[in-house]
């Protein structure tokens, strides 16, 4: 009995009862939209963080003094280099410059390819500087006076580069007031992965004040922040789950109302039980699929084209107006979401429909 006419008939019936299906359609779309927006944002942030992490060596070493970070010296590099298993140690300069007019910290990062008169800034910083009429250059206030640098290039703001200013190493030392043999952190290269943990222990053994983070530690830190059970994520998922249950309730009750009579009429004009179930299946699949794909599509546009206004601030706070998200679509999670939304949705209508279809028709029509 599965033929074109039957499908046409089901669709026609669906369009006749537009209003009743509209509610389900909107709620479903909204839930999918919300859930996939969160998914897109967290996946994109995670992606950017991991890409930045991949560029680093296996162990990151920072120095502390009375619980606060302090610079490391050439001596630290020399003695960590002597540990067998360590292949290279790079001293890195990196820190924050306080821009008092806007009460903001700028993250100063070293880029060796730049000369001593230019810098690269993010689009977020560009807009902050533009507020204070710094359009082609910016003056850093340092211990030795003013250091002014030309804006050479503006890069896109993502989660990492949002507050970044890239400068030459000498200039970075000047801005951050660091001496020539001082380093903010050390990047330790360990070619053999199975030695990483052991070498981190050895470094701590050498300098008890030092804080050592391996790449895997950082990775699991990031994972933890964006794990679905964590804080904000849990709240958002609970919201979508509750609204999903409201939707299911609506679905079930719709079958028991007016629709009960409709099913009985179909039965009495000769529809088999499987035909009725199939009819309901077609109608609700259309609703579910349309709203699922519309939801995902809207979320994609909302996050990656409009940059997720409002929702972004929940994740990143108020200083994030220029952050754009790298488009990352995790098909696997979208598929899991499909299974967990579309199937309960269909089940919630097919089971009651079947229950009514097998009842005594004369009872129902009365």
């Amino acid at each position, binding site marked *: 009995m599965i033929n074109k006419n039957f499908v046409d008939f089901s669709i026609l019936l669906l369009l006749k009862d537009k209003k009743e299906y509209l509610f389900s359609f909107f709620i479903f779309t909204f839930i999918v939209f919300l859930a996939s927006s969160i998914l897109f944002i967290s996946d994109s942030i995670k992606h950017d963080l991991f890409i930045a992490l991949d560029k680093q060596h296996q162990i990151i070493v920072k120095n502390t003094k009375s619980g606060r970070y302090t610079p490391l010296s050439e*001596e630290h590099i*020399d003695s960590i*280099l002597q540990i067998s298993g360590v*292949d*290279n*140690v790079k001293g890195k300069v990196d820190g924050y410059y306080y821009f008092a007019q806007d009460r903001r910290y700028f993250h100063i990062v070293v880029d060796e390819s730049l000369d001593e008169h230019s810098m690269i800034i993010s689009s977020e910083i560009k807009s902050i500087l533009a507020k204070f009429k710094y359009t082609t250059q910016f003056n850093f206030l340092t211990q030795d006076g003013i250091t002014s640098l030309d804006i050479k290039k503006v890069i896109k703001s993502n989660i990492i580069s949002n507050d970044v200013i890239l400068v030459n190493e000498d200039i970075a030392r000047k801005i951050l007031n660091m001496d020539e043999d001082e380093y903010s952190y050390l990047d330790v290269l360990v070619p*053999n992965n199975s030695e990483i943990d*052991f070498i981190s222990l050895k470094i701590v053994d050498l300098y008890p004040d030092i804080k050592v983070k391996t790449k895997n530690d950082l990775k699991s830190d990031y994972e933890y922040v964006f794990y679905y059970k964590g804080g904000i994520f849990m709240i958002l998922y609970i919201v979508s789950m509750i609204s999903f249950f409201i939707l299911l309730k609506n679905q079930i009750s719709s079958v028991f109302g007016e629709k009960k009579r409709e099913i009985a009429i179909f039965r009495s004009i000769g529809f088999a039980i499987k035909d009725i179930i199939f009819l309901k299946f077609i109608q609700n699949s259309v609703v579910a699929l349309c709203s699922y794909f519309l939801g995902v599509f809207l979320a994609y546009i909302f996050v990656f084209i409009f940059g997720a206004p409002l929702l972004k601030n929940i994740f990143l706070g108020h200083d994030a107006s220029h952050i754009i998200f790298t488009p990352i679509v995790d098909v696997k999670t979208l598929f899991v979401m499909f299974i967990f939304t579309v199937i309960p949705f269909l089940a919630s209508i097919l089971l009651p429909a079947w229950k009514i279809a097998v009842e005594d028709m004369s009872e129902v029509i009365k």
Partner: protein
Amino acid sequence: MFVKYLCILALMFTVSNAKMFQSISEDKGTFVQKGNTKLYCPNCGMNLPKFYKTNHIHKNHQYCSLHCLAESNNGKKLQDAKVVDTKSLKFIGVKNAYYVVNSTKKGTMSVHSKYAFAKEKDVQEFRKKYGGQIVDFAQAYELAKIDLKKDTSMINTKRQKKVYKVGKKLYLAKCNKVNPEAFESIASLKAGLKSECKISKDKALQAVAVYLWDTQKLHKKMGAIGSIKVPKDAKCPICGMFVHKYPKWAAMIDADKKLYFDGVKDMIKYIFSHKEDIDVKNIYITDYFSTTKIKAKDAYFVFGSNVYGPMGNELIPFSSEISAYAFKKDHFGKKVLTFYDIDQDVLEEIEEL
């Protein structure tokens, strides 16, 4: 108000000048060498004002440290040398100098620092502040000679792991071609490089000079680069496992047909059963620490440690004796062997572990 202003100024001055203990500015010191190598140590090329407080003079050569003095004179007894008085920054004869060794202030090119003073009062004051023992020149020189071996190995490790890499990168990026053979000392090479390179920092120039001098004039090894490339379908002839899954353990015999093994143990088994066809020169293994390709005949193997390879207990290969012994100590190894020490008994012992 004026005093307050002065205080801030003084503070700023100290903050911006918080350099190394040894360093002074160029105009405050005495430099006896002539020409363009005036400010460089003839033994290592390092900048003399940067390490001024450990400078020594001998026969018109000004060395950056006691280490360099001892090294370039092969540890011969010296009585006519001069040393900087850490307090007054003037040169004094070593006979009259008091040395403080092992103080908490870091030394130059040595694990044990050695600073000299002219007056007893100054030396006591320094020792009170930074600790250490007071000795005369003969004892300090003796100590420098004892330290020489350890210090040299430390310096070599640093150069192999870092300085050569930095130097090579800078040389290729910022310098014109220079022939190190034409220079008689590292100091003159460094002075020559100053005009050939677009480098302003002394540290960077030093790295380039050390790289060129050591690798091209003294022909020291830069350390192996590159690892054994294992084809995807290569199977170990002994155990039949795919070798490319364990690149850290790969071993290779480079004969007519290339053979790959997932560990030294399996390779040795193969070698014992095909002794006559294999040339020792063609056997390569992967260094455990650096995961680079090295020759088996130059390697050191640690046996009986708590690190397991893909086939269980392993002979773990290292390119240097120092790292082999360091590994043995850290991972409870039983023995360090060379390639020629490995025989049937060793194999049996591994199997029994």
